[in-house]
């Protein structure tokens, strides 16, 4: 007699759970536990080598009233917005162009990816030298063009721009990689139909390419912005957060507070606040993308828009003639 489904399912479920258990334990040990421990440390007064004392939210009150932390937080948010936007636009543009290239695509892709292959320390040193006003090539080029010298590393705004430049150089290839893969995976039929119907390149891009690329774009922007919030290595090497705190970031501030000054409680609180911000931003972004994606997809099903597009493209042809 065969076992009934009701008796077989529990046995299968138990086996599945058993098989998943090691992975779950690993996840719990190396992801969940450190997170809980960090939250616990953030509620303590704990110096390296000292006893820890529970102090509740005192660390949070202290750092939210600390001007250097607030400036570091501001810098981190501005930096994330700036670099993610620039890298997305550049990455999309390069991916679009390379996608249209028929020959030499592989070596071009490799060349585009090269900056991403370097370690951040090397990138930091390269850009520190490039931006040096006395010995760096960038200032040398500016002088030859008759442009004024820029104090890249010693003035607040140029120093910030210098960090954005270095990060953009290193991570635009990452955007390119994801978006290029997205472009390659798009179905060809809608584009063929659109061309047959006489849609202009801009209409094809805006009504077809861009909406179809929303999932890939969302993934790229999300991944890159989460990493940008954690910026540490480039700024540590190029400016160490200076001049003053003009380029200081939350990660840098937490590092110096925790591991140089030994105040682990405050450092943990800084990182927990950043984590909360990143979670809120991520959830908001995903909701925004979902809504935007739905609204962008609707015009594709409207014959009126396609007819209008056809009429526009005929007008352009007559004008050209």
């Amino acid at each position: 007699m065969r076992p009934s489904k009701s008796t077989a399912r529990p046995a299968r479920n138990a086996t599945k759970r058993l098989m998943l258990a090691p992975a779950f334990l690993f996840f719990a040990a190396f992801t969940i536990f450190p997170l809980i421990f960090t939250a616990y440390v953030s509620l303590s007064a704990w110096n390296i080598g000292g006893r820890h004392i529970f102090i509740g939210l005192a660390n949070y009150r202290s750092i939210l009233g600390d001007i250097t932390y607030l400036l570091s937080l501001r810098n981190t948010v501005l930096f994330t917005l700036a670099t993610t936007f620039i890298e997305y636009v550049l990455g999309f543009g390069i991916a679009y162009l390379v996608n249209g290239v028929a020959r030499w695509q592989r070596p071009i892709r490799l060349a585009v990816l090269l900056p991403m292959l370097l370690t951040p320390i090397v990138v930091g040193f390269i850009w520190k030298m490039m931006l040096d006003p006395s010995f760096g090539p960038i200032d040398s080029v500016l002088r030859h063009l008759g442009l004024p010298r820029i104090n890249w590393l010693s003035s607040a705004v140029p120093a910030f721009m210098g960090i954005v430049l270095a990060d953009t150089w290193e991570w635009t290839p990452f955007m390119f990689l994801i978006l290029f893969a997205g472009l390659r995976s798009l179905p060809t039929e809608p584009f063929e139909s659109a061309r047959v119907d006489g849609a202009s390149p801009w209409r094809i891009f805006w009504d077809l390419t861009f909406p179809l690329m929303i999932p890939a774009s969302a993934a790229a922007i999300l991944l890159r912005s989460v990493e940008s919030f954690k910026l540490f290595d480039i700024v540590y090497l190029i400016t160490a957060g200076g001049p003053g705190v003009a380029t200081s970031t939350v990660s840098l501030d937490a590092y110096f507070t925790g591991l140089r000054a030994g105040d682990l409680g405050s450092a943990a609180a800084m990182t927990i606040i950043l984590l909360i911000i990143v979670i809120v931003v991520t959830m908001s972004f995903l909701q925004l993308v979902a809504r935007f994606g739905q609204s962008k997809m609707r015009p594709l099903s409207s014959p009126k828009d396609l007819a209008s597009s056809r009429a526009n493209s005929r007008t352009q042809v007559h004008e050209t003639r």
Partner: protein
Amino acid sequence: MKRPGKSKSTSGSGTNPQFECGDAKMELLSRRLSRRAVLHGGLKAAAGAAGLTALAPMLGLVKPADAQNRRRYDGVTVKVAVGSFMSTGVTLFTKAWEQETGGKVEVVQIPFGDLYSKLLSAFTSHVNAYDLVIYANDWVPEFASAGYIISLEKYYPEKTNWNTVIPPVQHLMYVKGKRYTVPMDGDCIFGYYRKDAIDNPQHASKFKAKYGYDLMPPTTWKQYHDIAEFFTGWDWAGDGIKGWGVLEAMGPHDVDPYIFTSHATAYSAHPDLPGTLFFDPATMKPQIANPGWVRALNEWKALKPFGPPQMATYGGGDERGNYPAGNYVFTIDWADTGVEAQDPTVSKIRGKLGYFILPGSTEVYNYKTKKWDHFSTPSHAPYLGWGGWHGSVTATSKIQDAAWDFLNFLDSTRNALVAVTTAGTARNPYREDQFDPKPWIDGPMHYDDPKPYLDTIHASFYNKNTQFDLRIPGGGQYFNSLDKWIQLALSGSMSAERALTHCASEWERITDQFGRDSQREFYVTLQKMTG
């Protein structure tokens, strides 16, 4: 013994298959027996040999190992933790010690910025990570009072050269009357100047015409400022490159708080109130925001136009790399810049360096009267920033004697002299014999005219108003706070007064965190070291 049972044979030779099978099996058996015999025999032979070897000395067949050939630390490995900046000052001597003692040295280099946290993590986890640690003297009271390092008093009777360490550095070996360290280095901060700028008669006449006094190495910070301003923006070196007046390490999260404190001592270290540079010893109220410190920060900020713009991000390493290679009249640093300047492959100022103790002031703030006191001659207050590299034996070490032995070896009179006269060791003079110019001239770096260099260092140590660094628990936190707030002032985000007031509030919080009474006890000990 019964023969093996028969099996079918296919040999077709007409021989008795039963016999063939039996033969094969016998042959196999005999092989096995042979193998067994060989193994047996081999084992017996090995056992016999081992027994003979063990008994041989007793039987007089083999001479025992010569006791004189055994070295005192054969088979012992000493683990040494050292800041990467100073590691050459250790590795230069490891082979010699290993050959002499039979021991081994395992050097663990720790990036300078992580040294404090890494050592503390090792100590507090009570693992036997290191036998010997070489670190900043500023941390000694903290490590000693927590029991992380051992008192070396039991070893010092055998150390015959400890009393030739110059007295200010000797003081730094003690915590509550016991010696916990062996010094490797003498730290003091002083000034460097370009002789081809200051000693040039044409420059001198132009300077006097503009400022109304003679051009000479500065004795006050006002003179330092004027001279730096005078030499900024023109080719005073005659090499076609516009020069600057000053190059200092103003960058954040580096040596900036020490360089700034070098500027502040002239205004805040009152010669009649020893040991009050950082705190009021009676109340532990921070002095960091008093008018003396505020004035120093304003003047330090005012130097920015006289140096290259990137000076605002320069750390100590950047300063030492760039000063010898460029056209800057002044710098303020430890003795390392002088050493770097001797390397002709990277330096264009070898033979052009002059030296001066930290400039003073004719006005010093009196924190008790809350007024500025005036002096007829500049009051100088040289600053022994950072305390120098010192070595200690850890409490967790299982081979403390061997660790001491190596530490003592590093500080033998000969080795210490070699270390301080060799570039790249980060060990600066700290013993009387090291102030003799001859070994510097004859040594590996062939120092060009070392006497003024050594005289300036000596004078910095022996000035009656020389200031020790902040050598109390949490010193790193205090200086981290100072670093943060002076950077905000330097960048123009807030005034010097407001920045240092915030810093003083943070210092109060740190003091309370560590215990005001305990911190006072350590600080008063510091006070007894000065004046």
